[in-house]
């Protein structure tokens, strides 16, 4: 007679043993009342647990179902942001954005209103500082030559602005936006942001055009040239000092 430990019996009851191993235990239980009793206790406990927490209809589920039914079909942390941008870039507002793009707009100033004053915390902190950990990591570490990460986020251009600050343009393919961020007070601040044609939810690894508004912001900020791959790696390894 084999002495089975609780774990084996538990696996038997939970259907986590092979058919043969389960049948072996059952066969032994036929001639071993103690083993049979232990198995029965476990089986009874499993049944009792399910009974104690039976699925019950609850009228409050109706309200939750309505909440779910009314939800937007696709909601990513960036989606509302991207939608707001898309709205802002709609042709009827072209004049407004034309002016802003030429002058470079500052994140906190323009993006705050776009988000209706509701900042989700993971996108932008007040003042336009990037608070999205994934994007910060991309801006801190990623090289243009590495292309996009698993979320479709990539860095495109790296350069210093007129005040010597490091700036990088990025694409966030998952969000369908692209932008320019510059290093200020040891954080990345948004200088420009625009919907990117590349981002339709699908992850793109191929190079996509940087939107005109972002390029305009680059032109305004750029002092000297954009970095080549080697200089970009060097600046990264120096911690963007």
């Amino acid at each position, binding site marked *: 007679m084999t002495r089975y430990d609780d774990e084996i019996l538990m696996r038997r009851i939970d259907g986590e043993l092979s058919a043969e191993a389960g049948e072996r235990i059952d066969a032994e239980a036929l001639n071993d009342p103690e083993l049979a009793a232990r198995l029965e*206790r476990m089986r009874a406990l499993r049944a009792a647990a399910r009974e104690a927490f039976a699925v*019950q209809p609850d009228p409050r589920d109706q309200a939750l179902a309505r909440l779910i039914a009314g939800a937007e079909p696709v*909601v990513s*942390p960036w989606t509302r942001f991207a939608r707001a941008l898309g709205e802002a870039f709609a042709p009827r507002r072209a004049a407004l954005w034309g002016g802003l793009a030429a002058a470079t707009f500052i994140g906190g100033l323009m993006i705050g209103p776009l988000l209706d004053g509701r900042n989700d915390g993971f996108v932008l902190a007040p003042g336009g500082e990037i608070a999205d950990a994934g994007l910060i990591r991309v801006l801190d570490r990623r090289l243009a030559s590495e292309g996009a990460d698993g979320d479709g986020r990539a860095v495109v251009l790296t350069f210093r602005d007129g005040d010597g600050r490091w700036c990088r343009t990025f694409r966030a393919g998952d969000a369908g936006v692209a932008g320019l961020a510059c290093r200020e007070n040891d954080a990345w601040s948004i200088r420009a942001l625009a919907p990117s044609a590349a981002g339709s939810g699908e992850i793109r690894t191929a190079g996509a055009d940087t939107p005109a508004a972002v390029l305009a912001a680059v032109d305004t900020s750029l002092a000297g040239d954009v970095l080549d791959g080697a200089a970009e790696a060097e600046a990264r390894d120096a911690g963007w000092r």
Partner: protein
Amino acid sequence: MDDFQTGLVELLPRLRRFARVLRSRDADAQDLVQQTVERALAARSKFRVGTRLDSWTFTIMRRIAIDEGRSSLRWGRVVSPEDDATARVADAALADEGLRADALAVRDAIHALPDDQKHAVALVLVEGLSYAEAAEVLGVPAGTLTSRLVRGRQALIQTLSAQGVTG
């Protein structure tokens, strides 16, 4: 509604059941379901087609439950035993009509388990997830899940037989 939304609606009764295992007070369980639904909707772009929606949503609920547990510790929020008992009696009257006394004892015994064991018991015994699925929801290796499950079960059998409940 798309497949994700339909799936989530169909999952509501099970989400509520899981919440009722994690939270003994009905109002707390409702909060947990509500928050889980909201977070699942907000995070749906992270849901990969082909993965199980139940496991994915249970994972969200469990994280919220743990975070809440931590913050209530942090803020020193204390529910006096009296309040707790009163609320539970009220809940029981509402939700447990017709439920056998034995089942109530089983419910109390499961609620009294340490969280780690309670979560393992909830996923495997109540929800019927496989060990592999439950381990994934809990974010622990399979061996850890198994030992929590063994200890939780032993504690339950001990508690219930001491009370003369056969299950």
